[in-house]
């Protein structure tokens, strides 16, 4: 009946493989020949100083940017370029560094929107919003309520997200991503601008998501402590190049990494 000493990383087969991907905007290289993989069921951290190309990496993975060269294999299928919604259909969900919520909609609707791909009832049922259409709505509402319960945001269920404090908005955004029941969840600085307590909550949620739903997670995070606690493996980017790829413990000792972090700051946030 004792509490688990530490979470054993259950590393499965490769879910996503990135092979020397390069990306540049009008001459500026955001990424150069980056390769790494994400395995089923792990929590993978992508870290690096500002301008290292972390966010660009995520944007490439979920098809928002098209890399000039390189190969991305997701669930065994190779793809060089794809539209974002295709990524979503493929099972990749995503949260953003500076929130991308639907501000005009309530918490509930935001998360329900995350079910867009799962809801299939045709247009003509939607016109009446009874029978099958309503039945479907109810089913999905139920799933969404489970997520709301999971993220402990029941009290703000019907408040337009625009009016919520930052920390809660982050949670709602996570909720929307979870509603997609993704195989791969990309979190872009999930704890940016949070106070200690909020960070602790968020970490708990991330771990629980990973355990409860077995969701594979790739996250960008600045707070080293958090990275060390959460992640199974860490990729370190600097100037759009991969400078390290190992377990948190090793990365902390890697001198390239240390140099990259102590070295004078450069670049603007990508």
């Amino acid at each position: 009946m004792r509490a688990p000493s530490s979470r054993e990383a259950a590393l499965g087969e490769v879910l996503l493989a990135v092979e020397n991907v390069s990306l540049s905007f009008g001459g500026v290289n955001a990424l150069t020949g980056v390769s790494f993989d994400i395995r089923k069921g792990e929590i993978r951290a992508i870290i690096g100083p500002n301008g290292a190309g972390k966010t660009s990496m995520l944007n490439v993975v979920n098809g928002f940017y098209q890399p000039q060269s390189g190969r991305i294999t997701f669930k065994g299928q190779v793809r060089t370029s794809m539209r974002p919604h295709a990524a979503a259909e493929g099972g990749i969900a995503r949260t953003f560094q500076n929130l991308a919520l639907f501000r005009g909609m309530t918490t509930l609707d935001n998360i329900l929107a995350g079910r867009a791909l799962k809801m299939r009832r045709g247009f003509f049922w939607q016109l009446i919003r009874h029978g099958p259409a309503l039945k479907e709505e109810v089913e999905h509402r139920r799933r969404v309520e489970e997520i709301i319960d999971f993220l402990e945001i029941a009290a703000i269920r019907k408040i337009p997200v625009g009016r919520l404090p930052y920390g809660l908005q982050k949670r709602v955004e996570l909720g929307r991503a979870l509603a997609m029941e993704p195989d791969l969840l990309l979190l872009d600085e999930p704890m940016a601008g949070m106070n200690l307590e909020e960070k602790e909550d968020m970490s708990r949620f991330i771990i629980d998501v990973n355990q409860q739903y077995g969701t594979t997670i790739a996250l960008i995070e600045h707070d080293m402590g958090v990275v060390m606690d959460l992640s199974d493996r860490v990729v370190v980017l600097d100037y759009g190049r991969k400078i390290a790829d190992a377990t948190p413990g090793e990365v902390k000792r890697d001198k390239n990494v240390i140099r990259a972090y102590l070295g004078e700051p450069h670049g603007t946030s990508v």
Partner: protein
Amino acid sequence: MLYREAGQYKSSYAADMAVFPILQDRIGIAVILLVAFVVFPLAGNDFVLNAVMIPFLIFALAAIGLNLLTGYTGLLSLGTGGFMGVGAYACLKLTTIFPHVDIIVWIVASGFFSAAVGVLFGLPSLRIKGFYLAVATLAAQFFLEWCFIRIPWLYNNSVSGAIEVPLRTLFGIPVTGPTATPVTRYLIVLSIVVVMTWVASNLVHGRIGRMWMSVRDMDLAAELIGIRLLRAKLLAFAVSSFYCGVAGAMMVFLWYGGAEADVFAIDQSFLVLFMVIIGGLGTLIGSFFGAALIYILPIALRAVPAAFDLPIRPAAAEQLTFVIVGALIIVFLVLEPNGLARLWQIGKQKLRVWPFPY
């Protein structure tokens, strides 16, 4: 204060997701419908029905149409007039070619034609955004206007170049044409508007509405949760134009009883846009408020001098209305940029939390 919500608990999601979850609201709606369907036909005189209620309802429907596009999906359109026209002319052609099919069927069916046209001109919306799109829709407006004038077939080659509404009956009662009584026409318009409003609210409260709103609020994020932007936008164009088309058809067949192309000129587009903005973007009830204000206000203004029989030339009165309406629009935008619907919500909220301020 009026709202006494204690004891109104929801034990099913269906009930919780209802459009009017609060008992008092449901009562309110019932009362309004009762008044609209019973009291007006009995009490309202022909002027009220003809010059106020019928046009008000028709504009409200058009406003709902535009609101679905602009308010819910965030696509600014200046082509409303054109799309309304398509409906009207489509209806004319249909009833001319198949005179024996019930006109009401055609009034509704004509919506499909404007929907098709809407989709066509909506195609660029994937790449074009904001004002650029607005201007693009002007292309639709002017092109359609031109068609209405230049293609005689559309108005059955009538010498006047105008639509002449034929007599059509339903169960022997004249529905369109000169002999149709205002009450009949009013009731038909009302029924169509009520049903279509209900349908619209179904749409916006369901999956489709969420899709549209997510495109409006942040199209990138919308795409990243798997929404196909083009589909969503075209659907919005289609539905929106459908509503405008039906409104246009009703305008000619159930209100004017005959019209020329200039009825669907760009001014009409602007008028409806005013209604949407003043009423409140992204709210159905706002569309009704907007229609009421923008349409009924000028009538009232014109009535004023008459009432106090002030010596004002009708022309001057007309111009004065322009000035006042223009000024009012600005004033409204300054006072409540979110439109009358917002005011309504605030008021309602106040009543709900009464006596507390929040």
